[in-house]
C-alpha cells in the first residue's frame, strides 16, 4: 500500500507538471486540443492524490508501523476518529492533506468551468437567444450587433469569465500543486519506511490533538488557507490576460468568500480548542501560528470590502489585485512558519528542513505577481476618483487602511523574534501586550466603521443624510456605554466596545427595518404581508448586502464576547474533600476524587459541586489524563456556559506536600457570545454566497437605456 501511495504522488506530480506545460504551450499557440488535455490532466491530479491519501489512511488504520509516519503519529489503542486525524497531525501527512485539498479545489473549479461552458453554449444557442431577446428585460436595451448581446447573456458574464480564465488559472493552480507535490515526493514523503526494526506500537497522537475540535479544526483551517489559491489563480490569470470588464472580480470574490468562510470557522474552532483544551482560561494568545492564520484572514476581509469599490465604481483595482496576491502570499507564509520551526509556538510542527523550499516558492510567487503587475498595470487604471471624504468609498478606504495597519502590526509582532535574532543575536518576543496595545484601539475603530460605512451614500453624503441616519444609532450607543458604566464596568475598552456594539447593531436593525418597510409599502411580503415575510424577501433580494449585515452582527457578538474578558476573574487553591472556593457568583465544593484507567490513558478526576446563593446548580468534573503511548499528561477542562458567563475549572495537578488536588477556577463573562457570533458570521457568509432572487436586466426607477444613451441635459429635462 505504501508503494502504491508513493507511486500515486509521483504520478500526480507528473500529471500536474504536464498540465502546466501543456497549458502554457496550448495557450501560447491557441491550440484548443492541448488546452483541453492540460485541463484534463489538472483534473486527474485530484483522484490520483486521493489514491495516495486513501493509502496513507489505510496504513494508519492497519497500524502499519513499518511506515515512519504511522509509527511516529499513531498507536494501536487510538480510537478510529483520531486515527483519521493522524493524516494531518504530522508534517508529511498534513502536506499531503494540503495537496489533496488544493487538487480538490482545482478539480471543483475545472468541473465548474466545464459545466459553465455547457450552460453558456446552451444559453447562447440561436433558439434560446431568440427567446431571451423577446423578454421584457431585453426590450429596454438597444439591440447590439453581435449575437451574444442579450440581457440573458449578460447574466452569464461571471460564468463566461470563469470559463475563459480557467485555462490559465488551471496552469497557475497546477504550478502551485507542483510545488507541494515536489515536497510530498522529495522533501517530506509520508510513505517512507522506518530504517530500523518495526516497533510493536507507535508513539501515538499528540494528546493536545485528541479532541473533537481537533478532528475538524485543521481541515477547516487548511480549506481556508488552500482555498485562497483559487482566487489568486483567477486574479493572476485575469491580470495576465488583461481580461476585459470587471466580471472576473466576481469570480475572484466568490472564491475568496468560500476560503474566508472556511478560514473563519478554522480560526474560531482553533480558539475554541485552545479554550477547552489548553486550560489557561483564554482562547487567543497572539501565538505566531494563530497570527499566521489571522494575517490572510485580515487581508481577505479587506479585499471583500474593497472589492465593492471596484464592482460598483471601477475603483481600487490595483489595491484589490494586491490584496488577493497578499492573501495568497500570507497563506504561504503561514504554512511556512508553521512547518519550519521559524518561530516558537505550541501549534508549530517540529523543526524541519523544508524551509528553503518555502522560501524559494515564496520568492518565485512574489516575482510572478510583481512581473504580472508591472507588465499590465495600465489595465488596472481606476475609472473614477474619490469625490468626497464623507462617502461610502471613503468608509471602505478607512476600513481597508485599518485592516492593513493591523496586518502589518501582527506581521511585525510575529516576525520580530526572528528579526531581533538576526540583528541582536537573541530572540525577543514582543508579547501579548504589544498586540493588545496596538490592535484593540484599531479594532474598536473598525467596529465604528462597521456601523458608519453602510449608512454613507456612494460618492458624497450630505449633512442632512448624516443626521437622518446617525442620530438614533449614536443615542443608543451612548446609552449602552452609560449603562455599562453604571453596571460596574470600569475598563474603558469594554465600555467603548459595548457602546459601539449598540451603535452598530442599531444601524443594522435600521437597515433591515427600513428596507422591509419599503417592501411592505409596495405590497410585498407575501400573502401575510407581515414583517417576517418582508424581511425575508428583502434579504433574498440582495443576499450579498443583507448576508453581509448578518456577518457584521456576528462580528459584533464576537466583539461583545471579547470585551467580556475585561471582566474575567480567576482563583486557584488546593481542594481537599469538602473544601470550598468562591469565584464570581459561585461557590465550589470539592465532593469526590476518582481515578480511571483504559488502554489509551489513565485519568484523575475531581468532582466539584457548584452552588449559587446556597442553591445547588450543577456538578463539574475537571480531570487530568496521562496518555500512555506518548508519556504526556493533559488537563481536561470542565466548563459550564451560560449567556452571561462561563465557569471554567481546571484540574491543575496535586499539591506536592499534601497530595490534595489543586483547582484553578475562572469566571469568564460573555464568553459564549464569541462562539455564537462565529456561528452567526458563518451563516451570514453562506447567505451572502446565495444568488439574489430579483429580476434583473431592465433599467430601474424609470431610467431606460435610450434615456441613458441620450444627452445628459435631455435626461434631466
Amino acid at each position, binding site marked *: 500500500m505504501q*508503494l*502504491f501511495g508513493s*507511486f*500515486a504522488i509521483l*504520478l500526480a506530480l507528473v*500529471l500536474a507538471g*504536464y498540465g502546466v506545460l501543456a497549458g502554457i504551450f496550448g495557450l501560447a499557440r*491557441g491550440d*484548443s*486540443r492541448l*488546452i*483541453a*488535455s492540460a*485541463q*484534463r*490532466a489538472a*483534473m*486527474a491530479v485530484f483522484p*490520483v492524490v486521493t*489514491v495516495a491519501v486513501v493509502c496513507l489512511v489505510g496504513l494508519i488504520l492497519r497500524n502499519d508501523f513499518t511506515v515512519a509516519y504511522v509509527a511516529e503519529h499513531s498507536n494501536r489503542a487510538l480510537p478510529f476518529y483520531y486515527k483519521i486525524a493522524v493524516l494531518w497531525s504530522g508534517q508529511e501527512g498534513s502536506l499531503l492533506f494540503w495537496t489533496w485539498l488544493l487538487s480538490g479545489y482545482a478539480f471543483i473549479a475545472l468541473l465548474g468551468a466545464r459545466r459553465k461552458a455547457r450552460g453558456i453554449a446552451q444559453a447562447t444557442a440561436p433558439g434560446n437567444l431568440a427567446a431571451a431577446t423577446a423578454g421584457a428585460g431585453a426590450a429596454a436595451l438597444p439591440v*447590439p450587433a*453581435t449575437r*451574444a*448581446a442579450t440581457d440573458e447573456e*449578460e447574466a452569464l*458574464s461571471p460564468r463566461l469569465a470563469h470559463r*475563459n480564465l480557467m*485555462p490559465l488559472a488551471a496552469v497557475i493552480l497546477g504550478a502551485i500543486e507542483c510545488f507541494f507535490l515536489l515536497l510530498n515526493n522529495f522533501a517530506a514523503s509520508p510513505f517512507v519506511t522506518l530504517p530500523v526494526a518495526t516497533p510493536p506500537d507507535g508513539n501515538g497522537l499528540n494528546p493536545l490533538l485528541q479532541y473533537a475540535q481537533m478532528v475538524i479544526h485543521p481541515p477547516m483551517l487548511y480549506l481556508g488557507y488552500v482555498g485562497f489559491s483559487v482566487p489568486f489563480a483567477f486574479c493572476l490569470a485575469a491580470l495576465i490576460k488583461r481580461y*476585459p*470588464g*470587471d*466580471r472576473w472580480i466576481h469570480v475572484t470574490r466568490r472564491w475568496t468568500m468560500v476560503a474566508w468562510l472556511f478560514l473563519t470557522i478554522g480560526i474560531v474552532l482553533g480558539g475554541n480548542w485552545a479554550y477547552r483544551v489548553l486550560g489557561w482560561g483564554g482562547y487567543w494568545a497572539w501565538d505566531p501560528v494563530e497570527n499566521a492564520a489571522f494575517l490572510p484572514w485580515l487581508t481577505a476581509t479587506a479585499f471583500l470590502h474593497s472589492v465593492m469599490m471596484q464592482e*460598483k465604481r471601477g475603483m481600487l483595482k490595483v489595491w484589490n489585485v494586491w490584496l488577493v496576491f497578499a492573501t495568497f502570499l500570507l497563506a504561504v507564509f503561514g504554512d511556512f512558519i508553521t512547518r519550519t520551526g521559524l518561530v516558537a509556538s505550541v501549534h508549530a510542527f517540529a523543526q524541519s528542513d523544508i524551509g528553503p523550499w518555502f522560501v524559494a516558492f515564496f520568492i518565485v510567487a512574489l516575482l510572478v505577481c510583481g512581473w504580472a503587475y508591472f507588465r499590465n498595470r495600465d489595465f488596472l487604471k481606476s475609472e473614477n476618483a474619490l469625490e468626497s471624504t464623507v462617502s461610502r468609498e471613503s468608509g471602505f478606504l478607512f476600513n481597508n487602511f485599518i485592516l492593513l495597519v493591523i496586518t502589518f502590526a501582527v506581521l511585525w509582532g510575529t516576525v520580530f523574534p526572528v528579526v531581533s535574532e538576526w540583528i541582536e543575536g537573541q530572540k525577543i518576543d514582543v508579547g501579548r501586550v504589544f498586540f493588545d496595545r496596538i490592535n484593540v484601539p484599531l479594532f474598536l475603530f473598525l467596529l465604528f466603521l462597521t456601523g458608519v460605512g453602510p449608512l454613507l*451614500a*456612494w*460618492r*458624497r453624503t*450630505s449633512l*442632512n*443624510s448624516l443626521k*437622518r441616519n446617525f442620530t438614533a444609532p449614536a443615542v443608543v450607543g451612548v446609552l449602552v456605554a452609560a449603562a455599562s458604566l453604571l453596571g460596574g464596568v470600569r475598563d474603558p475598552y469594554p465600555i467603548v466596545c459595548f457602546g459601539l456594539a449598540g451603535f452598530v447593531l442599531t444601524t443594522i436593525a435600521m*437597515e433591515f427595518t*427600513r*428596507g422591509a418597510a*419599503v417592501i411592505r409599502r409596495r405590497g410585498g411580503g407575501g400573502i401575510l404581508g407581515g414583517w417576517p415575510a418582508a424581511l425575508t424577501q428583502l434579504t433574498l433580494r*440582495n443576499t450579498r448586502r443583507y448576508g453581509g449585515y448578518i456577518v457584521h452582527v456576528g462580528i459584533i457578538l464576537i466583539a461583545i464576547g471579547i470585551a467580556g474578558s475585561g471582566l474575567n476573574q480567576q482563583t486557584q487553591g488546593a481542594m481537599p474533600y469538602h473544601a470550598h472556593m468562591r469565584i464570581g457568583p459561585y461557590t465550589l465544593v470539592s465532593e469526590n476524587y476518582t481515578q480511571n484507567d483504559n488502554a489509551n490513558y489513565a485519568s484523575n478526576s475531581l468532582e466539584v459541586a457548584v452552588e449559587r446563593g446556597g442553591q445547588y446548580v450543577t456538578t463539574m468534573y475537571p480531570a487530568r489524563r496521562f496518555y500512555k503511548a506518548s508519556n504526556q499528561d493533559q488537563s481536561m477542562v470542565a466548563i459550564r456556559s451560560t449567556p452571561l458567563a462561563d465557569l471554567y475549572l481546571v484540574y491543575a495537578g496535586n499539591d506536592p506536600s499534601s497530595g490534595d488536588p489543586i483547582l484553578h477556577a475562572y469566571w469568564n463573562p460573555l464568553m459564549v457570545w464569541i462562539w455564537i457570533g462565529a456561528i452567526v458570521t458563518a451563516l451570514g457568509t453562506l447567505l451572502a454566497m446565495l444568488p439574489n432572487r430579483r429580476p*434583473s*436586466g*431592465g*433599467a*430601474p*426607477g424609470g*431610467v431606460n*437605456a435610450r*434615456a*441613458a*444613451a441620450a*444627452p*445628459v441635459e435631455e*435626461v434631466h429635462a
Partner: protein
Amino acid sequence: MGTGLVAAFACVFLTVMVAYFLLTGGEAQLEDSPREAELRALRERKRTIYDNLRDLHFEFLAGKLGEEDYRRGRGALEQEAAQVTRKMEGRA
C-alpha cells in the same frame, strides 16, 4: 513478493486509467474575439450601473438618502450609463 506484484499491477492500472482520461475528450472552447469581449465588458458595466441605480432608488425609498443625495447620485449614474451606451453604439 506477492504484495509488490499487487502494488505494481495497481500502479500500472492507475497509469492506464489516467492516460485514457488524458487522451480522450474534446477540445477546449475558445474565447470571444477582442471586439466581442470589449462589447461584453461594456454591457457588463451598464448592467452594474443599472444595479447601482436600483440600489440608489431603493435607499431613497427607504429614507436613507435625502432628496439632494438621491438626485446627485442618480444624475451621476445616468451620465455614466449614457457614456457607456454611447461607447457601445460606437463599437457596434
